[in-house]
């Protein structure tokens, strides 16, 4: 009989001793899992309302064009067509698809031209990418909507377009946003004396790499459903990661007061950053307001792949100066990222490429050209700039280490940022790094992959191993990040935890329930989590930046401590014992000194509500403002086989060692690492958005856009390192996004180790690997 495998866990001694944990640290089943395995979980796309109209999006077939006129008369005559909304109808209010408030944008990017912050309306009269929305047809059924589309007379003035970043930056390129003067936002960051650093260096290395666009391909396509009551109250169900940001955007664009807008995120079929922005929610609500009917806008898979945001394609050049021992003295980064047509998340994603760096580099300079093109927007995608730069940096550092004759693991270790040094995430803060398990990750991974053992070539097969290291944020890093939680104690001793953070499947409803139960001293079965409903739950920015466990988790601790204070106060009245002698544990009020049970939480709750001298409904809220952003760390190791005849790369073994601070739920930690690593493997070996000369996506289905299937995956060994983080809930940092970033470079470096080739662009397709091998063989022949 096989048993469930447990991940290897390495605990780095905690500085604070907690009493024995009862709920936190256990691999408990997810709170919503039974609904999901029985088909009972309701997703947005499962909601069918009786009077619901289908919202059919009409998209431009031109890449860049001005809309002269739209004649909807013939289309409106189709029976069952109720309304058609065009760019000439929508409110003339600009907003940022990133969804952030203006203050956050200014905090992250103080020098950005406001035209790049709020750079679009619901439908623009100038089309900036193929597939941009031109009209919304509202009909009783999709057949009528399609027929109406064919009768819609749209007159375009077709304009010359910009298909790629190279052309976008040239003198002759047309301006994508008129009046801005150029198609680029330039940004720079630096510290130290770069020139001096390079002068002192005995070796200087330079590498240029490029990375492709990648799609999230959430399994549930983007869906919004809006319902309007005669009173004007609007309810919106959406596949969103940011319900509160969506509510604010609806308020700002449509002028509805916030208390009349209820945004609910039901079960959701994936997020990964795709839904960390405005999708079609505002348009859906606007359509419901116009028609006074419920409206559903659901994307097809083809629309979802082609026209939702993607991971930024980028060209990156790195230059590094080191001394003879491999100590980094100067580090320079040039990035050209493809923003697409609208800025959205591009400013922040591109800037984030600079700071997610686990090394001390002496002096640093970063320049980015965030470049507009006539393509669908690039945006937030798991890792948020990290996978691009991590590939470039770890590829580059592997070459430096190998050329200096230093073991790549030693090269990393000697340049790591250490506890007590400045937290590299925020350059201008006085944040200090309080935990770092990266060295332990490297050591454990090295052992697990059998770093020093080599396989002999067999026929055309070559074998090699490679590694990489990475760091990621735990919450948004450049701004105060806060979350709030509300906990209600019911009269039977169970609690309701109301929390704004949306669970996207990563399981934050469960980790939050565990944190709540642990702090309050109850069992997890007694916690009911109600999340991501703007009418009911307390405020939360949303599920992004791997922030839920840390930011919302800390808010839950604060709220639970306040509930516990009340519980003990009433328990003292109930039992006649001193408050200072009482504690809670495992569903009981206990004696602090020995844990002896005094009364049950159930009896206490009943007492507080019905028998106390001052009856009370114990209900407390708290907000947590993150005053630090403790980074999580990882080291990945790949063991690969390269077939030098076919160019095929097969991953034989993959080790992912992650410092998460504390695994609140170890199964959910390993699940995050495995899933993110799979997306990293897709990024490294097969996934690529391919556009034609008109910037139209050529591979918009799962037939042509290849994501890893079960037969493409290799074994993944996850090692959980727990370097206790003092500012984290029970010591926890983050894990969700981290594991995408180090995958591609670990594979790249293993390919070099196996076959002696360095491929500076993703993905490593057979064709590319084979071409590199041929080139290497030709060179060897010559010399």
């Amino acid at each position: 009989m096989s048993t469930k495998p447990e991940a290897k866990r390495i605990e780095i001694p905690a500085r604070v001793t907690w009493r024995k944990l009862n709920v936190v640290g256990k691999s408990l089943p997810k709170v919503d899992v039974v609904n999901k395995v029985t088909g009972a979980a309701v997703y947005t796309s499962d909601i069918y309302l009786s009077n619901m109209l289908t919202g059919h999006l009409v998209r431009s077939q031109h890449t860049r064009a001005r809309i002269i006129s739209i004649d909807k008369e013939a289309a409106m005559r189709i029976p069952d067509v109720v309304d058609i909304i065009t760019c000439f109808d929508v409110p003339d209010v600009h907003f940022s698809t990133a969804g952030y408030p203006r203050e956050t944008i200014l905090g992250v990017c103080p020098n950005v031209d406001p035209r790049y912050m709020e750079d679009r309306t619901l439908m623009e009269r100038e089309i900036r990418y193929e597939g941009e929305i031109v009209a919304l047809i509202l009909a009783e059924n999709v057949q009528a909507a399609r027929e109406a589309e064919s009768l819609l007379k749209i007159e375009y003035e077709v304009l010359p377009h910009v298909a790629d970043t190279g052309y976008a930056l040239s003198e002759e390129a047309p301006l994508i946003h008129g009046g801005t003067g150029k198609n680029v936002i330039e940004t720079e960051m630096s510290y130290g004396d770069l020139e001096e650093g390079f002068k002192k260096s005995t070796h200087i290395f330079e590498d240029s790499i490029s990375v492709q666009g990648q799609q999230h391909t959430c399994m549930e396509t983007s869906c919004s459903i809006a319902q309007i009551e005669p009173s004007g109250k609007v309810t919106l169900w959406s596949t969103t990661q940011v319900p509160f940001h969506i509510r604010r955007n609806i308020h700002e664009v449509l002028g509805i007061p916030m208390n009349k807008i209820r945004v609910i995120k039901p079960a959701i079929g994936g997020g990964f950053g795709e839904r960390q922005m405005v999708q079609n929610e505002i348009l859906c609500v606007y359509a419901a307001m116009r028609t006074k009917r419920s409206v559903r806008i659901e994307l097809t898979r083809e629309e979802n792949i082609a026209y939702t945001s993607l991971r930024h394609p980028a060209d990156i050049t790195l230059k590094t100066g080191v001394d003879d021992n491999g100590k980094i003295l100067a580090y320079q980064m040039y990035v050209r990222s493809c923003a697409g047509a609208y800025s959205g998340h591009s400013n922040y994603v591109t800037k984030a490429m600079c700071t997610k760096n686990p090394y001390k580099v002496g002096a640093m300079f970063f320049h980015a050209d965030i470049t507009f093109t006539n393509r669908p927007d690039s945006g937030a995608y798991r890792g948020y700039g990290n996978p691009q730069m991590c590939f470039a940096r770890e590829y580059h550092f592997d070459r430096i280490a190998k050329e200096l004759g230093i073991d790549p693991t030693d090269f990393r270790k000697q340049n790591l940022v250490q506890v007590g040094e400045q937290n590299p995430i925020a350059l201008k803060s006085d944040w200090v790094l309080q935990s770092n398990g990266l060295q332990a990750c490297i050591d454990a991974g090295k052992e697990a992959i059998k770093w020093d053992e080599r396989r002999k070539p067999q026929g055309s097969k070559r074998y090699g191993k490679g590694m990489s290291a990475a760091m990621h944020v735990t919450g948004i890093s450049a701004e105060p990040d806060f979350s709030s939680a509300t906990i209600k104690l019911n009269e039977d001793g169970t609690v309701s935890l109301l929390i704004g953070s949306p669970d996207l499947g990563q399981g934050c409803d469960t980790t939050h329930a565990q944190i709540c139960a642990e702090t309050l001293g109850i069992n997890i079965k007694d916690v009911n989590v109600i999340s991501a409903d703007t009418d009911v739950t307390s405020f939360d920015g949303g599920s992004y930046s791997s922030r839920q466990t840390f930011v919302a988790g800390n808010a839950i601790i604060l709220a639970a401590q306040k509930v516990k204070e009340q519980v003990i106060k009433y328990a003292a009245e109930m039992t006649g014992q001193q408050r200072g002698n009482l504690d809670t544990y495992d569903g009981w009020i206990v004696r602090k000194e020995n844990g002896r049970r005094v009364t049950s939480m159930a009896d206490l709750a009943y007492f507080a509500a019905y028998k106390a001298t001052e009856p009370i409904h114990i209900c407390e809220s708290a907000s947590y403002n993150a005053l630090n952003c403790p980074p999580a760390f990882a080291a990945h190791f790949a063991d690969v086989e390269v077939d030098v005849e076919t160019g095929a790369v097969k991953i034989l073994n993959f080790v992912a060692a992650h410092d998460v601070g504390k695994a609140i739920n170890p199964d959910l930690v390993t699940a995050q690492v495995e899933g993110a690593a799979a997306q990293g493997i897709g990024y490294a070996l097969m996934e690529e958005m391919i556009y034609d000369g008109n910037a139209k996506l050529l591979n918009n289905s799962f037939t042509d856009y290849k994501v890893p299937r079960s037969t493409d995956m290799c074994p993944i060994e996850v090692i959980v390192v727990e370097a206790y983080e003092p500012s984290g809930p029970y010591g926890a940092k983050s894990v969700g996004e981290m594991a995408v970033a180090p995958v591609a470079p670990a594979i790249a470096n293993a390919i070099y180790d196996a076959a002696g080739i360095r491929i500076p662009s993703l993905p490593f397709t057979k064709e590319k690997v084979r071409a590199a091998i041929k080139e290497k063989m030709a060179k060897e022949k010559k010399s």
Partner: protein
Amino acid sequence: MGKKYTITFTLNGAEHTAEIEAGTTMSTLLREILHQTGTKVGCDIGDCGACTIIMNGRAVKSCILPAMKADGADIVTIEGLAGKDGLHPLQKKFVEYAAVQCGYCTPGMILAAKAYLDENPDPTEEEVRIAISGNICRCTGYVKPVLAILSAAEEMRGEGK
């Protein structure tokens, strides 16, 4: 509206009659007419497997299955998998192994696995991977689902706890 046809089929053990048009797919019939939304649609062209159901013992993709084909058939969907005694071993193991994240692919993957295990009760890991290769999962990297299916197979063979 086109001509309506009447079909009769067994759904999760109960007989159903439905009025459908010739072009209606099985996934549309299940989700929009019978309101059984446990069956998901991820691509609508038979690529992703989220819509997998079991028809006459075989896993089929309901988004490209004309509902007319279900006339007289025995259909099992995720809603019908749990029995009187509780969850099916596959469902239990998906819970125990934390094999569910967003859960959108889960019904289809569980049903693909069930149809396969009914045919081959003692599969290798490689065989399980092939059996669910028509089911895309973007969350798990397939690590935990494959382990869960292998463990469920053991339990279904009577080797489990």
